[in-house]
């Protein structure tokens, strides 16, 4: 009797045999004790390795993965925090400069303040100085606001 190759029997067992060969292979296995043994061994092996009810993955697996993933992301988060600090500071700087300049011009126009109200200091220089001071104050406030977050984050990573 001519036996099919063992690889063909493997394909038959796992349902991967070509359709035109399947019937002939099945018929052979039915009448050949040797090939039937291989088929039985394959079933036994598969049965022994079958997924059982005790193979359940850990219940908190997803949570653990997501927690790790969140720890990997802070590079993006920190960038966002910097933007959070810089944007309001820049806005405060611009608004302060505009307010001081406009206010100075208005006071001069109304004649309430003579041409050079503060001696050698021009309104522009005064505006810039006050704006820089404002920026420092805003920066300090933002740092104070973010400090607990940064401390907690570094604590969580260590």
């Amino acid at each position: 009797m001519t036996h099919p190759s063992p690889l063909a029997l493997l394909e038959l067992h796992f349902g991967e045999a070509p359709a035109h060969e399947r019937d002939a292979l099945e018929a052979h296995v039915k009448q050949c004790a040797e090939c039937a043994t291989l088929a039985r061994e394959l079933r036994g092996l598969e049965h022994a390795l079958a997924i059982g009810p005790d193979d359940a993955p850990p219940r908190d697996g997803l949570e653990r993965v997501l927690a790790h993933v969140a720890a990997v992301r802070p590079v993006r988060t920190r960038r966002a925090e910097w933007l959070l600090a810089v944007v309001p500071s820049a806005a405060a700087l611009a608004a302060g400069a505009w307010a001081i300049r406009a206010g100075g011009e208005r006071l001069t126009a109304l004649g309430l303040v003579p041409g050079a109200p503060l001696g050698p200091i021009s309104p522009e220089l005064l505006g810039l100085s006050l704006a820089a001071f404002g920026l420092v104050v805003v920066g300090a406030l933002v740092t104070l606001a973010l400090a607990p977050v940064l401390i907690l984050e570094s604590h969580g990573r260590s």
Partner: protein
Amino acid sequence: MTTLSDEALIERVARHDADAFTLLYRRYERPIFAVLLRLGGQRSLAEEWLQEAFIRVWLAARSHDAARGRVKPWIYAIALNTARSDLARKRHRTLHVSLDGTGIDLPDAKGSEPSLSARLDDEKHAKALAGALVELPDYMREVVVLRCSRELSFAEIAEATGTPQGTLKSRFHRAMLTLRTRLGQGRGK
């Protein structure tokens, strides 16, 4: 979103969509965990690998190229590589054999109740088989475990491992012959 294909999900995961990642995780955690359990032999090890593998999936999602292969073999490849590199480090070669803890599914859970003697035969056979599997080289055990999980075809295993299908089938067959010899020796003792 549950009906989305793996490919659509991985695209969303690449954009750090946690919901898509959750779906993908739920879709694959059980079969991949079962494979890792049989490759590693210890539940704690398989849990560690599963976690590491899915972290890698999250991080590498952007690099997945749909033109070069499907998501399923890609995820299995990540899980296999995680296990391989860790095994290479630890030289850990015990196989999960506990019948009541994890792994081997006895037939009483499936329909008709078999006789006690049949169950004992099954248990003995499963133990002997698991013992013989431990002795197989990793490359043989890998293909046996992956194909017997019924989750991947030989073509998909070839995609995941980068090994030609013919080679995989030959390895499987050689593994069968090795197991037959070892189990035969065991009976003879």
